[in-house]
Every structure is written in C-alpha cells, then in structure tokens.
C-alpha cells in the first residue's frame, strides 16, 4: 500500500513536470512584408492590417522618383493567429486570387522577420518583413555603487525612424547610494547610452527586429506597471531585476536564435547565480552576454551613423 502511494506520488510529480510547456514563438503578421517568388523573378509588397485588411503594392522601380502602385486590396485570415498553418486571401479588387472565393496559401515555416508560403497553384514565396524603423536593445550596468558593491543595471529599448526616437528603460537605478526599481530617470539612462571604458561598467548594444522589440517592450511595460502599482513579485527588488533582465533577453530568441544567451538557470554550471548575490546578477549576466556576443555589439560611432536619417536613406 505504501509502495503504491509512493509510485502514485512519483507519477504525479513526473506528470506535473512535463505538463507545462515552454514559451513558443508567436507569429505576428501585422505590418509590411515583401513577398518574392523563390526564383526571384517577381516581388510584391503586402501590407497586413490588424483588422484583417490587406493591400498589395508593386515594388518601386530602381529609378529615381518611382513609386509603388496599389495592385489589389482585400482581406486575409489566418487559421490560427499565433501559430498559423495557412492564410486565406479574399481579393476585392483586381489582383491575384479569385474574386469569387478565398485563395488558401499554406505557411511552410515562419519566424520573426520572415516566413515561407506555398500552394499547389502558386510558386513558393519568401516573405521578408519591411520596416522603416530601426530597433536596438542596450543592456547597461555598473557595479560598486550600492553598499553591497552592486549597482544600477537595466535594459534599454530604442525605436527610431531617424527623426523621432522612443526610448524605454526599466530596472534598478540609483539616487545617491540608494537603489530603486522602476522607469530609469532620463539623465541616468542617457549616461548609460554611451560606452564606458571603466571596468566597473558594462554595455552591450544590439540591433534587433520589430517583433523582438515589441516582445521586449511588453516585458518592460509590465514591470513598469508592477513598480507603479506596488505589484512587484519579490520583496527584494534585486530579484525582480534578475527576473526582468532574464525575461527581456530570453524574448530575443523566442522565434529562432539570434543572440547567444548565457543560461541563467540556477543549475550547477550557472556561476552567476550560484556564486554571487542576486544584486550583482544582472551586471554579471550583461558582462557574460557581452563576451558571447562581442561581434554583434554596436559601438558608439556605428550607432550614431545608424541613427542618422541620411545614412538610412543611403542604405535604402
């Protein structure tokens, strides 16, 4: 009887451990995409709206002054908004697809910035996301500020179209020698936007895609709300910050590996959480990510170039 109870308990524990899945890549079709046939012969620009409307435009010619023209207009529907296997198009005006019914196109694979479709009647198409904005994630930290030798550490998300820039940063910051959690004051944030040569500072600046930015921003906004409404998850704000930086950085690879991540899992090989206080965790984590992704880091000079509208126009 006792043995039976133990076996039942073990089965329950195993079931519990396997029943809860990991975060999966959620597809987001809203936005502008360039669809190119696999042989590269033709390209069309599709604009998918959140309300289910779709507009098709021709690709502008390479000559100066040429503009893209609207080819067709209609509606689209995904069979499953977050993990689709097919899109059905209904064309209202002249264009691809039949006017009387929907054209079903299978989605072969998808990621943050691209997806591939195919059907029996049409060529395989490669879809690439087009965006007039650029997005950056900055992971910045400093040690030796607070009584326990730790310091401010926070992620910064930047969205810019060359003219207007939106910057969001949430995490641990200092006022005097005191630590606070919440939206980083502008002056302190700007101080961390530039690289420092001090060994006590760390900064990794990455260019990211729109979906990565949106996912990261969602995490930052949630933590900002938690800080404002007194709903932080831990009594110790440094633990909240560890969770925040872990969540923001892990959303980067939700739809495919784009950044090498340090595995902060409290396991036997995780030296950051095993050998250090939680207050130093984000700083050391950023340092480790900088080491792993040195080639992806955008130095100050390059960042300034990327932020200039002229440079962006030339690139186009």
């Amino acid at each position, binding site marked *: 009887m006792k043995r039976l*109870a133990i076996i*039942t*308990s073990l089965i*329950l*524990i195993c*079931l*519990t*451990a*396997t*029943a*809860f899945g990991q975060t999966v890549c959620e597809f987001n079709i809203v936005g502008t995409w360039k669809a190119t046939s696999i042989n590269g012969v033709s390209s069309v620009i599709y604009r998918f709206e959140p309300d289910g409307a779709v507009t098709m435009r021709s690709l502008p010619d390479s000559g100066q002054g040429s503009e893209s023209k609207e080819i067709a207009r209609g509606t689209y529907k995904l069979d499953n908004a977050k993990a689709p296997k097919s899109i059905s198009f209904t064309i209202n005006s002249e264009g691809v697809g039949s006017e009387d019914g929907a054209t079903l196109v299978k989605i072969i694979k998808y990621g943050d910035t691209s997806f591939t479709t195919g059907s029996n009647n049409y060529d395989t198409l490669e879809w690439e996301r087009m965006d007039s904005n650029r997005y950056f994630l900055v992971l910045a930290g400093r040690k030796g500020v607070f009584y326990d030798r730790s310091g401010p550490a926070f992620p910064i998300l930047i969205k810019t179209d060359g003219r207007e820039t939106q910057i969001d940063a949430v995490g641990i910051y200092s006022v005097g020698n005191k630590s606070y959690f919440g939206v980083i004051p502008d002056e302190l944030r700007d101080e961390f936007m530039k690289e420092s040569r001090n060994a006590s500072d760390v900064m990794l600046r990455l260019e990211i895609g729109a979906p990565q930015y949106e996912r990261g921003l969602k995490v930052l906004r*949630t933590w900002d*709300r*938690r800080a404002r409404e*007194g*709903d932080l*998850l*831990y009594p110790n704000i440094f*633990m909240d910050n*560890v*969770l925040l930086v*872990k969540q923001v950085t892990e959303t980067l690879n939700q739809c495919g590996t784009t950044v090498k991540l340090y595995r902060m*899992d*409290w396991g036997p090989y995780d030296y950051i*959480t095993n050998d250090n206080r939680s207050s130093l965790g984000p700083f050391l984590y950023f340092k480790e990510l900088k080491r792993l992704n040195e080639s992806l880091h955008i130095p100050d000079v390059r960042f300034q170039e990327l932020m200039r509208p002229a440079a962006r126009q030339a690139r186009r």
Partner: protein
Amino acid sequence: MNRRDLLINFANRRAPVQRPDTPYRVGRFSNGVLLTHENKQVKFYDDLIHGRQAVINFMYANCTGACPLITEKLVQVHRALKDRMGKDLFMYSLTLYPEQDDPAALKKFATMHGALLPGWTFLTGDPYDLETIRYRLFRENHIKFDLDKGFHAAQLRIINDATNHWAHVSPNVSLETILQHISWLDPPKSIEEIREENKILQEKIDADIKLHGYRRTV
C-alpha cells in the same frame, strides 16, 4: 479595542477581532478583478479571501497531466468537507493560462471533472493579476522554481484570512493529510466549545475505565 476587551478576548480564547484592511494586508494577496467560471466579476481579496478560510490551487483547462489528478483529489476533499463548503470554507482554482482559459473553458473543465460544486470557484482574468497572485501565494523566493508554473500547480495553499494563518500542502499526499492541514487553520474554538469537547472525551474515558479498567480512547 481597550485593554480590558483585549484581556477578556484572550481569556475566552475567541477568534481574534477582524483586523482592519490595510494596504499591507491586501498587498499580500492582490485585489485584482477576476472572472469566475460563471462569468461573474470578483475582486480577489475583497470578495474571495477577506475574512474567509480557503483552499487555493492553480490549474489550466487543457492540462492532461497532473491537473485532472489534483482536481480529483480536491473533489475528495470537497466530499469530505461538504457541510462546510460555501459556508465557512471555500475552494478556488485559478488558471495558469488566462489567455487560453475563458470562463466557459473553466466551466467545461469543472463539469468534466465533477468539480462544479458549491463553494468551489474556478477563476480566470488578466494575466498580470494572475501572475501577481501566483507569486504572492506560492512564491518560493527562488526564481528557478517560481518561473516553473508546473511547480506552483502541484501545491495547495490554505489560508484563513480571519486569523491570518497560512499553510501549504502538496496535493500528492493522502486525503487525510490534506484534511489535517485544513483543520490546522480552522477558526479557534470558544472556551465553551472546548469545555464541551473535553466533557464528551472525559465521559468516553470514564466509560472505558469502568468497562475495561483502563483508558482505551485516545
């Protein structure tokens, strides 16, 4: 309350006087607005916890692993305490995946597992509020375990808000152990109730001694 009232209450061992709501008290739970399986809006602390004794667990409707087994165990708990359910004892099952589980999905789950019972409410709502409640009630102060929703799902939290007592028990243990944990948080008995219980026990002991010559009742 003056000093005399305090001493009299202490001497009578009555349930403590209801404490006033303070931000600290509500802050221990969260007062987020949730939706019941009957699609009714409720405030978590004000409507469900305040002054009550409750057994709380997390689950989700599409779970085919541990949740049905845990729910089955909770049905047994409900059966054993059915006289108290909905009166001075309540059961709350909150979803881990509010994005997927609307009130209808929770009601279907409850019906499927025979858990549509008085005093037992299934709850969904804003993911923000449910995450806050999950951490407030089941936090281990270790991020690895706290991130693991499954780890939190395999636990029961028992709370008596009137006495401000909390207990925790695994649903994998025997029914008797769960009932024992719930009884530890029962409201304190008055001196009269304790005297009455002692009197009944003494009568049993006296009867044992008269019949067998020694005490058999434990």
